[in-house]
């Protein structure tokens, strides 16, 4: 099967010096891909570059077979890419419902059906529909941020540490949602620190170290590797 998103040897960074160097990843429809790696490895930078928030020095990004390298975020959203940043991922003064509506800005046609789908997936959000997002708990915010990104009905969803700061129990809940999002056909690419849960729940994993591809494999395979265990899991 053709990958929905294919990132080919991209180099990118904030100023002139590259942070991500020649990294390649690919993700298929209806699957979860996790990117793990030590703090500062360039995982967030990679997602930002793919989503058009940073300039790409070299390499290519293909979305559904089309070259979208360097395209700005609003156009990528219109073409089927969604992104949830790690921090500040909801509009605090907008209600939960308005946050979701903003997510549908580029694709307004089926807003109400999509909102029902998001509410079905995250019943907590439905209960808090009219509340300002700023009053939600950290976990609920991450749910809302995912819901917001789903409102454009993306083919590819990029999530930057969706479980950061959450309790182990809530982390499990979030991952259940991620798996369900993949089950409805999306390609979900997740950057994670909670490596065990992430690798257990994902179809494929990439290991990023110092801005470069170090390894890749199926989740269980990577988990079983002693060197990876030593690197991230303190085993």
């Amino acid at each position, binding site marked *: 099967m053709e990958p929905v998103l294919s990132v080919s040897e991209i180099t990118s960074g904030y100023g002139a010096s590259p942070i991500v160097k020649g990294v390649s990843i690919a993700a298929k429809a209806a699957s979860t891909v996790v990117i793990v790696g030590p703090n500062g490895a360039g995982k967030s930078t990679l997602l930002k570059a793919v989503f058009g928030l940073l300039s790409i020095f070299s390499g290519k990004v293909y979305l559904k077979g089309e070259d979208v390298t360097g395209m700005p975020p609003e156009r990528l*959203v219109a073409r089927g890419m969604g992104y949830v940043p790690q921090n*500040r991922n909801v509009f605090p003064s*907008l209600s939960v419902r308005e946050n979701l*509506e903003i997510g549908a800005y580029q694709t307004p046609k089926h807003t109400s059906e999509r909102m029902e789908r998001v509410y079905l997936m995250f019943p907590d959000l439905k209960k808090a529909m009219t509340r300002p997002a700023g009053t939600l708990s950290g976990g609920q915010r991450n749910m809302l941020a995912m819901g917001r990104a789903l409102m454009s009905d993306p083919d590819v969803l990029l999530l930057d540490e969706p479980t950061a700061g959450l309790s182990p129990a809530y982390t499990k809940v979030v991952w259940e949602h991620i798996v369900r999002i993949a089950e409805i056909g999306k390609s979900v690419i997740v950057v994670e620190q909670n490596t065990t849960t992430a690798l257990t729940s994902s179809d494929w994993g990439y290991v990023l170290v110092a801005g470069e591809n170090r390894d890749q494999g199926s989740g269980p395979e990577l988990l079983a590797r002693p060197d990876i265990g030593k690197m991230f899991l303190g085993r």
Partner: protein
Amino acid sequence: MEWNKRARRESCDVSLLLMGVGFGLITASVLAIASVGLTLQFGVTNFVNFAYGEFLTIGAYLAYFFSAVANLNIWLSMLLAALLTAGISWLINRVVIQPFLKRKAPLLILLVVTIGLSLFLENGVQAIAGPSFQQYVTAPGAIVNIGPMIFTAQQLVIVGIAIVLMTVVHLLLKYTRIGKAMRSMSDDPDLARISGVPIQRVTDLAWLISGFLAGLAGVVLAINVTSFTPALGSQFLFIIFAAVIVGGIGRPYGAMLGALLIGLVTEVSAMYIDSAYKTVVAFAILVIVLLFRPQGIFTSRGRV
């Protein structure tokens, strides 16, 4: 005897107060239109436009041109002036301000740019229209008494315009897609962009609305003060800032309430103390608010 005198004095006090409230409502109406225009633009772009006062001046002079030179009705002149000022505001953002933003100029530079723009525009108006006092040729209309409050028909129209505009702004922000997009940008411009909000279009709209409200406010201000010079807007800018900051900068509903508060208090105070102290009173309110609630009195969380 004594009783009668006291009763008369008290009724006199009350009517003086109510007269002040009447004037206050008119000032608040002018101020609300102007303040919402300034605060909407700030909310979306996150920097203060110090040339905003001159947008009012431009509106007032354009309406003067339409009414006195082209002989149009004052309200039609007002509408045309507001539309033109909207266009000028949009153009100034695109041509003067955005090039600095594209080069990621620091906030201080933007501040200096809008202050420079303010001087340029005020002197521009003066060069074209001259420094002397101007006045619209309009009749204030019939006198309307509401209790002890005395309004001219014209003043009531101004209050009506303000109420209509505030309602429209409310509906826009609360119920339209683009209005919600404006509020999302006001909350977090980066996240708005990530979510697919077309930020250039929303920014354009913010400058258009801001210019429209400024132009319109300039005309009703000029009607209200009867005669004006090219310093009309810059003299009023401080009061606008007071209303905007009291309400919490960047928050349209706050600006409306701030305008009401500043308008009422300054005009009521003018009934009891010299009206030359109006600005001092506005300043006093501002300082008190900044001391106790620097985020503005009418705000809780979020920006708009």
